[in-house]
């Protein structure tokens, strides 16, 4: 097998998908190294969300290869399987279980056996309890652990969702617009949190906020019309004439 595949955490090659004649992804290829934090930018309709749909098994590509963790072909697996393999996904619109408490949200996200009967007879162990409390600390929601998630502010929901991803203990996190609707202070705290997370796992962040991406200070991939337009450091990408033309504007 290609060493590029075996050495990567995520490997996309020549991936295309169309909806009713509209080509959402057009021969998209890129590679994420283990432990890497990658930012993805691009105009609306560039295929960012479709790319995430394909990685997480929500959409099947028309053609192309998608490999995870060196050898696992993701195009043959569904969402649950892929999540169990260790890919976590945060949606653009924060999606948490609104009628559960914050504690329950995290308990559900914990990386434990997820079958019907294992959940039916599940008892909260001290180990799990400690783990949840640790995550609560990380996402700063300890004080609100018994509140319903519906009552959280927008930013807090984003953080809870990130917390849920952490509870899932994924090898790769896909984070879609984590700072949309956040205050500046929250945004920079989120950047810190993501950098912290990236110490132990790979993270792919899709974001429009250039300031936030500059805060992250990592390799940037710019997508447009379903394929990679440019890749490199933020300064390199933001000076690329094609990127300026397509995305940033003059």
């Amino acid at each position, binding site marked *: 097998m290609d060493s590029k595949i075996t050495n990567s955490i995520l490997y996309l090659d020549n991936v295309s998908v169309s909806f009713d004649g509209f080509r959402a992804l057009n021969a998209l290829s890129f590679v994420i190294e283990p432990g890497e934090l990658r930012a993805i930018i691009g105009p609306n309709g560039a295929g960012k969300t479709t790319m995430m749909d394909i990685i997480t098994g929500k959409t099947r590509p028309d053609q192309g290869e998608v490999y995870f963790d060196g050898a696992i072909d993701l195009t043959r697996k569904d969402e649950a399987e892929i999540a169990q393999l260790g890919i976590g996904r945060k949606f653009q619109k924060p999606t948490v279980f609104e*009628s559960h408490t914050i504690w329950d949200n995290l308990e*559900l996200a914990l990386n434990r056996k997820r079958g019907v009967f294992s959940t039916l007879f599940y008892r909260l162990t001290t180990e799990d309890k400690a783990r949840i409390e640790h995550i609560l600390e990380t996402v700063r929601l300890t004080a609100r652990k018994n509140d319903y998630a519906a009552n959280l502010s927008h930013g807090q929901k984003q953080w809870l969702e990130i917390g849920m991803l952490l509870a899932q203990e994924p090898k790769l996190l896909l984070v879609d617009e984590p700072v949309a609707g956040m205050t500046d202070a929250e945004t920079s705290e989120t950047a810190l949190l993501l950098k912290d997370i990236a110490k132990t796992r790979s993270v792919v962040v899709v974001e429009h906020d250039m300031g936030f991406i500059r805060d992250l200070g990592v390799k940037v991939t710019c997508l447009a019309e379903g394929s990679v337009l440019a890749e490199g450091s933020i300064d390199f990408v933001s000076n690329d004439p094609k990127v300026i033309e397509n995305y940033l504007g003059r």
Partner: protein
Amino acid sequence: MITEFLLSRHEKKTLVVAALILLAAILVPLANLLAPEGSLLHVPDHLVPLMGKYLCYALLALALDLVWGYCGILSLGHGAFFALGGYAMGMYLMRQIGPRGVYANPLLPDFMVFLNWKELPWYWTGFNHFWFAGLMVLLVPGLLAFVFGWFAFRSRVTGVYLSIITQAMTYALLLAFFRNEMGFGGNNGLTDFKDILGANIQAPETRATLFAMTALLLALSLILSSAIVRSKYGKVLIGVRDAESRTRFLGYRVENMKLFIFTVSAMMAGIAGALYVPQVGIINPGEFAPANSIEVVIWTAVGGRGTLIGPIIGAILVNFGKTIFTAAFPEFWLFALGALFIATTLFLPKGIVGTVMQGSKARAERQKAVAAEKGRTAAQPSQGAAAHETQAAE
């Protein structure tokens, strides 16, 4: 593990309702059999099966609530599972008639003799044993739900699409059971039952026992349902209801989650049907009518879906209303039922229990807020006083 599971923390109101139902299981038969006629405590004979019927409906509504209220699957075909359970019990009761039928055939039920059938169809074998019929009461609806759900949930048929195909399912069964060739008595269904487990089915003692059994099974089902919905699995179900894709991306197999609760719920509906048939004395294809299944939905909605006691209260209230109404103004019952559908969806989307719970929760929160406010105002004057003092000291 099972007992631990069943005895795990329940909500207080669930336990109270379960206790009330158990109390009824004891008191109603006693008041019927022992209290002298004419006394205030006496429950007349005709009321016992009527109340038993309400409890069967309550069990059916509870079963529906498990899938609709907790998992967001609006089944418009739960009447089919109820009817299948009923038919399984009806087949047992038919075989108990034996040579006492009009045609006095020791083996074949009357309608088969009438249709000139010579042999008992293979699927009627075994139904002369109560244990076998009891098993079928669980297995037949369970299996149908499992197969149906396996296909539907795997291919992610959700929302109204699922509702429509569950309705089509019960409609197809309705058409099928109307056919004489099916061997379930066609149009007339199964009736003229004589006895159950050797006891005369018409006797007050039998009816009182049937009522007690119904109440007992309802209470047990309530406790079982409570254990299910309060487990981590139950929380996953609510997750599926509120944010299905989030559940999936957390690694849960949503189709398996749905399939399990759908099958359990269908079995529960089957039990309700099996208890219903000996108490009303007949089962016919009319029970498969789509309208019946939708009516169950409205009981659940009125009582409050997503609460366990809501459907029980809703089923009893609506059916009690139906009894009163159809006796007093039979012409207007459909108007009333129709209006109930509209009013519930428009003005009481959480149902009675849901609205009351919301009210009490809001009150509790207000009290909490008031208490916190009080705490602050209690602290403030001292601060103010302290400030005053410092000011005064200056």
